[in-house]
């Protein structure tokens, strides 16, 4: 009974309905290829969403993830092209992401700018400066097979992006649910003063939240670059909205204090299966915008009702 009352169960129910409906409509839905395709495109979103879940739980948000991701694809391709070393490419990417995460975090905590605004500004800055870095898309001229493997390869018949996501996932499930840091993030989001007066260094954890998110964007960005085989400015357009919508759909509160990684995963799967189903059913792709919009509002509405009843 308790399970039936949780937000996850509502999402799970929606997900199950979707799957049943789609498999009736088109048996191809359960083809291994289709499942690969859904999981592959989900995993880049999920990886970033893990960080976003932490941020939203601690009462912050990062709108710059999409712009950063597109910047990452350019950097990683460029550096590997020039140096011929994947390691150097990764170092450059994570160094850059660390820097951006730190700046976001410090603007939030030291200048005390609302993170919605601070990261909106960062989004503009990154969107502009990626072109200042290079006007042209950066193509894969290094042709290192390992690099292509990151996004396109399979391990035990599982797409590599999914493998990477699965490696990262347990770390965040444990972090949020079983360590004190998870408690700190939710205490900071729920009542920052109480957290501070319990000896928690709020600002430090907020900065960490931004840095983690940026680093995860680095991971997703590298996968995207490998998948596109290109460093492409302007890619990942609107990515931030998808990530945030999925995390909110997953039951994480925008006001902070509550967050669940499992909910986030379910939220993303729902959105991605809808996207997939719309293509499978050959419905006009415009519905890829409308349906998630409706589901987002309704899911949060029902979650609110459930909470009210349980209080």
């Amino acid at each position, binding site marked *: 009974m308790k399970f039936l009352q949780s937000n996850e169960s509502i999402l799970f129910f929606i997900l199950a309905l979707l799957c049943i409906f789609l498999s009736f409509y088109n048996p191809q839905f359960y083809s291994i290829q289709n499942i690969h395709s859904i999981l592959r495109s989900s995993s880049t979103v999920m990886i970033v969403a893990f960080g976003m879940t932490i941020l939203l739980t601690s009462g912050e948000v990062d709108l710059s993830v999409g712009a950063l991701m597109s910047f990452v694809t350019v950097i990683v391709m460029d550096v590997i092209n020039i140096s011929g070393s994947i390691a150097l490419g990764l170092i450059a990417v994570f160094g850059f992401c660390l820097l951006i995460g730190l700046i976001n975090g410090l603007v939030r905590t030291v200048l005390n700018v609302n993170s919605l605004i601070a990261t909106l500004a960062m989004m503009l800055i990154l969107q502009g400066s990626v072109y200042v870095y290079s006007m042209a898309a950066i193509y894969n001229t290094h042709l290192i097979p390992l690099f292509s493997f990151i996004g396109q390869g399979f391990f035990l018949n599982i797409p590599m992006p999914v493998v990477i996501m699965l490696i990262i996932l347990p770390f965040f499930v444990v972090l949020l649910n079983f360590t004190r840091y998870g408690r700190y993030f939710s*205490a900071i989001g729920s009542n920052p003063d109480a957290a501070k007066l319990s000896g928690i260094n709020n600002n430090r954890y907020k900065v960490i939240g931004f840095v983690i998110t940026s680093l995860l964007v680095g991971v997703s960005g590298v996968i995207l670059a490998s998948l596109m085989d290109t460093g492409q400015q302007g890619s990942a357009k609107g990515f931030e909205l998808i990530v945030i919508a999925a995390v909110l759909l997953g039951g994480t509160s925008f006001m902070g204090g509550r967050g669940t990684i499992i909910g986030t995963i379910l939220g993303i799967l729902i959105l991605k299966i809808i996207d997939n189903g719309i293509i499978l059913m050959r419905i006009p792709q415009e519905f890829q915008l409308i349906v998630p919009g409706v589901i987002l509002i309704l899911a949060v509405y029902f979650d609110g009702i459930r909470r009210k009843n349980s209080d």
Partner: protein
Amino acid sequence: MALGEKIVININFKELKIESVSKSFPGVQALDNVSMKIASGKVHALMGENGAGKSTLIKILAGAYSKDSGDISFDENKLNIRNPNDSLNYGIKVVYQEISLISEFSVAENIFLDNFPTNNLGIINWNKLYKDTEELFNRIGFDLNPKSKISDLSISQQQMVEIAKAVFKNASLVIMDEPTSSLTPNEIDKLFTVIKNLKQNNIAILYVTHKIDEIFQIADEVTVLRDGQHISNKLISESSEETIIKDMVGRTVNATFERPVDISSAKTVMKVKQISSKNKINNVSFDLHEGEILGFFGLMGAGRTELAKAIFGYDKITEGYVEINNNNYKSFNTSTMVNNGVGYITEDRKGEGIVKDMNLRENMSLPSLKIFEDLFIINKKREKNAADDYIKKFSVKTPSSERLITLLSGGNQQKVLVSRWLIRELKIIILDEPTRGVDIGAKTEVLSLINDLAKEGLSVLLMTSEMNDLLSLSDRILVMADGKISKEFYRGNVNQEEIFKASVS
């Protein structure tokens, strides 16, 4: 808002009758068949411990809650209170304990918040607004500029605005919920003058307080509630402090504490040297000894809370240092202090104490999670056991440690917040108004708990405005005024007048 029908009332009435009013919340009978009569032109005191049902009754009268059964009437005219609007239209005005003003607005705007003087187009007549406010202030003897912004006023000035706002017109019944909790003696006198003024205007006053001495100064009648039930109703002339307390707690209370004689020879656990902060604190120094209860007295705005927060690392200090465990800290934050065995219990439980999205266990263990860790992972079993221990120790009323903190009553939440610090190894605890808003019975419990803890070797910084608590517990008393320490008193060598004198110097 002037939408919907406007209730026209005749506020000439002899008494407001509350008849057999009941209200229950899931699992709690907050009010059980309560009846009372409040006569116009009289001050009716309402007393009772926390959880006795006072606030529920106030909220029903104010239209914030709807009653389950019973009647409320002016003489024979039944009132139909469905929402705050109805209540206001009946002339029922509440002065809440917490400041509830719009801080960006002027004094005058706040006072006329529910009824701006406007023309037919809804355009505000500013001249009239300020003039009316000024007239009101003249009438009740307040000295405030109607154009001042609320955020520029002191807390006590804001409290005055709060009162003026409630009484300014059309009041039939004024409910005052702990109106003096943040006022200076001088301001309390002014308030009492206002109350007498209201009495003369035939307004009924329901005066809710914990301070028994006040009701003998101002009230005509007193009603006591306990556990949602009506216990007694007497004329003031017929009652005494003892009988009222007995009615409230169902037993007599004795509040004197034995303290060890010579605490100042114990070793020093904390030295505060000439600290100043942006937040009022100016060159404060003192030593704290092991097992000592060091009381800080000061009027509203003297800087007690600010001092507590500066020492605890919540506010940055700009000068001086704090010495603890042989370390000098010039720049530190709350985690520095917590790691050094310092705890802090806030006066603002809701705003700075509880974490509302967490359950009781998680609230309790928040500062001490490290001790429950097995290699980065929290051992929930040990954590739960610790929480259960304290639930038992303080008899916290809850079905389990997994209950959301918000579902607990205020008193029980406070117990959780105390346990939050006792669960770990603690050397020093900073208590900011630990008995504010706590009823007499629980107050004694809290005070004796503090005494016990100190006897076990815990050092206590006790910030309070309650003179009695201070005198009965403190080994030493530091009086604060204007962010500075103005005088030091030792136990057995104090008298109330001198402390007051030092606090206004």
